[in-house]
């Protein structure tokens, strides 16, 4: 399987670590509600089909990405950068 890193280009999956479901929303730190944190930490929709997921190009540029991938076909339809440089790549 290949992942199109927006920084490095098309690379083999083995250069990345998988970060799991990217649709779950991490509570912001002031939020100390255990139930909301537990939802975030433990609960997944785990869909068959389209899946937005985090990947870390840990053996490449070390960027964290959101990859859109089909869990049934492994078809990767896109990847975008997240973090401070997201949307400011041209800077």
């Amino acid at each position: 399987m290949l992942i199109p890193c927006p920084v490095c280009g098309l690379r083999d999956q083995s250069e990345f670590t998988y970060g799991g479901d990217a649709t779950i929303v991490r509570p912001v730190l002031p939020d100390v509600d255990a139930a909301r944190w537990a939802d975030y930490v433990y609960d997944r929709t785990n869909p068959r089909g389209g899946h937005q997921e985090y990947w870390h190009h840990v053996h490449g540029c070390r960027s964290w990405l959101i990859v859109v991938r089909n869990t049934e076909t492994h078809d990767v339809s896109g990847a975008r950068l997240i973090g401070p440089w997201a949307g400011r790549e041209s800077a």
Partner: protein
Amino acid sequence: MPGFRLPQGGTRVDRTRPLRFSFDGAPVGGFAGDTLASALIASGRTVVARSFKYHRPRGIYSAGSEEPNALVTLGSGSVEPNSKATIVEAQDGLRVRSQNAWPSLAFDAGAVNGLFSRFFAAGFYYKTFMGPGRAGWMLYEPFIRRAAGLGKASFEPDPDRYETGHAFCDVLVVGGGPAGLSAALAAGRTGARVILCEDNPVLGGALDLEDRIADGNSADWLFGTLSALNGLANVRRMTRTSVYGYYDDDVLGAVETLPPGSQARQRHWRIQAKGVVLATGAIERPFVFPGNDVPGVMLAGSALAYARRYGVAVGGDVVLFTNNDGGWRTALALSRAGVPVRAIVDPRSQAPADAAQLLAEAGAECLTGHVVTAARGGTALKSVKVEAFDAGTGKTSGAARDLKCDALAVAAGWVPRVHLASQAGAPPVYSEAIHAFVPGAPREHWMAAGAIRGTFDAEAAAAEGERAGAEAANASGFNSFPGIPQKKPKDGGAAQRTGAMLPLFEIPAKGKAFVDLQNDVTASDVRLAQREGFESVEHLKRYTTLGMAADQGKTSNLNGLSILANARGVPIPAVGTTRFRPPYNPVSLGALAGRARGGHLAALRRTPLHDWHLKAGGLMTNVGLWHRPRAYMQPGETLEQAYVREARAVRASVGITDVSTLGKIDVQGPDAATFLDRVYTNTFSTLPVGKARYGLMLRDDGFLYDDGTTWRLGDNRYLMTTTTANGALVYQNLEMLLAIAWPELKVSLASLTDQWAGVAVAGPNSRALLENALDDMDVSDTGLPFMGVKAGHIGGIAVLVARLSFSGERAYEVYCGSDHALAVWERLLEAGKAFSVVPYGLEALGTLRIEKGHVTGAEIDGRTSVQDLGLEKMFSAKKNFVGKPLALRPALTDPGRKQLVGLRSLDGISISSGAHLVAGPDAKEPGRSQGHVTAMCFSPALEGYVALALLERGRQRHGEKLFAADPVRGKHGPVEVVDPCFFDKDGNRMHG
């Protein structure tokens, strides 16, 4: 007369270069270019193997990788079992042995199974071998295991070298037949980078079994095409290279077998393509009839291959049995090649007039409207039984007659090699035109061309290949080379090769008729499975083992399906087919492992002091990928004596140890302090520059994650240290938080683990040692107070010195650039001479920390909470940080949980690491486990054995007497539960 070498012919053999190998000790002659199979046939051999279950004598059945019978063991020493004699190139002096036969191939005791085969029907072993008693199966298993299996593998390490390679191309063409060659040429002419892979040593596929392609001579066509390919530098031809797996995103796995005499045996290729043309061809289909496994029965196309490629006749008296016109052309070609063809048997009433007449002239009897209802012979075919057949009723009729013969060539049509297509696409689709499965819709970027699509005519296949190659190149962004004739494939490409085939594959006749020759699965096994309800293809496969042998059912799957379909009374498409998975052809484990063998299994991380440790007698051990010294052994010392000596020296005077493996992360930026306040359970924004603080990290779920000291080097710069084990993970996790949780923070991280070497200097004389060593630093308690950090020099080398203590002694950590580590280390030893400084290793390090009750990965094991380890004081109530909300859950703070305690041995015997804590004094009645030992040592400070443990409600149980149960080591000893800090509880020595 069995097989023999024809007076002339053989495009692949060089009759001027004879060679000789041994088969079961007997010499076998051949020529350069022979396969083992062609030489064995030429030598008159009929039996070359014994079958899996009934140990029936088996001969060579095919001329390719579809071979079900002729599996042999090669070489001596590190032998290669289960090799297909049909694809192994004969080599002078090679040692070849038969398999699965005892005492000998000619007389195999296992053949007795055949007599009882009626009791060994499909699945019989699920119904018996159960008793007597509970251990039932264990009584029989040893015998069954010995009877099963084919070749014997060696117990010697495989000394051969296996290499790896990565290849990239715009178009990968799999298969070097007419379709593949045309595809490679067409794609190559567009300028695309092309790789052409072919299993065999030579290109051309089955073209050399055709006389003509289009209106020209096929040899000329091949020569022309190959020379055209030669002219294209962008086309890379890889023969002897078998593409076995089609993985996601058009990444394919292939194994290249290097010619004999190469320094490596095989090379694994990872091929990443933009587009793929699958031109993998087809396999000839056999008939199912009684005795169809007798040595001498083989595929007709293969018989022709032996004649044309190797100048070998498969028999002196050949009968050919077919259900289509192609079989007649094969018969004619055999006859013309000098192979005596005695008769052609065809269930159809009409034969192709031209071929029939020519064969009749050649003296062959043409038995149309007939079928072979039995093949007779034990270790060699003696005759076939022929009966009249009525295609209308599908029944045999009239008198049977025996035809004497020593070879029966069967030709029941062709089965496309859809395996790779199926790996990377929808299930194969049944084609009524060829009565076989063709590729389904692609999931990856491939196109199929030629016989794999049922286009058996060479010209039509070439045209398809040409178009597929051009289209694949276009799809990869290369425009078609102008002026390529874009021929449309002729209709009825199938008919061209097979004629009006009569879809008769199983001959109605009584007797043992095999479907899967390698696993000895018969037609009646298939029917039995169906009767017992194993109706789905997968159930059939698993219950009968049909198609699950090393040949992966290449010659048996389709016949099995059609018999199942008949038994169920449904059309074949309704039965469906099984999904093909990698590998298409067997792949050696050596090729998959490549050079990652022995010491190369994984990279070794070395600290800058690695060589010094080795020279000093360091007993090295793996810590993750690092090598670290457990202790520096002196002659005659045990490990315990060594570490006790080292630890004692530290407490008595001073020692130094290599802590370079600690994870170190440069945390920089205007928001560095805010960031650390969020990731640590305690506060770092208040830490003054030039000070260090011990920090604790939690996982999101509130359990302990990692710990270490972090030093503030500037307003916006910290040096974070982590445990050796978690360095990379913590770094990655911090990057995750900055990317996902707090992208607004201006913080940059960089790993400095390799930049800084670290040396801990510990002991009452550590300060004096440093005063000797340092050029320019005041390390007095005022100059460098506890937890202070300062920059200075040792012998002109810039160092950072932090006053930290893991040992509980006055201690310092000296950091310097890794390239200076050895110099600094040696200067420290020099400066410590007066105090008889010792280097100490991991075990002493552990001993010193156990005496102090400091925790490490043994206690922070991913399951412990802040409270478990008594670290509440590190848990800030004022601020929020990662893991806090879930760390406050009652389950994590429950006082009933296992808590950190110290243990003191009460019998003077060591407390085993890994022992469990129980109440029972008697090893035979220990009672339940209440906790376990995480770390133990002999404490020089206490002159006794002590340990740390996690114990239920431990903190309330100090003073209690328990027993350390270690049944797996046969130990059971009394211990007293004590405070985890054994030594200098108020820390005078550390601050002192």
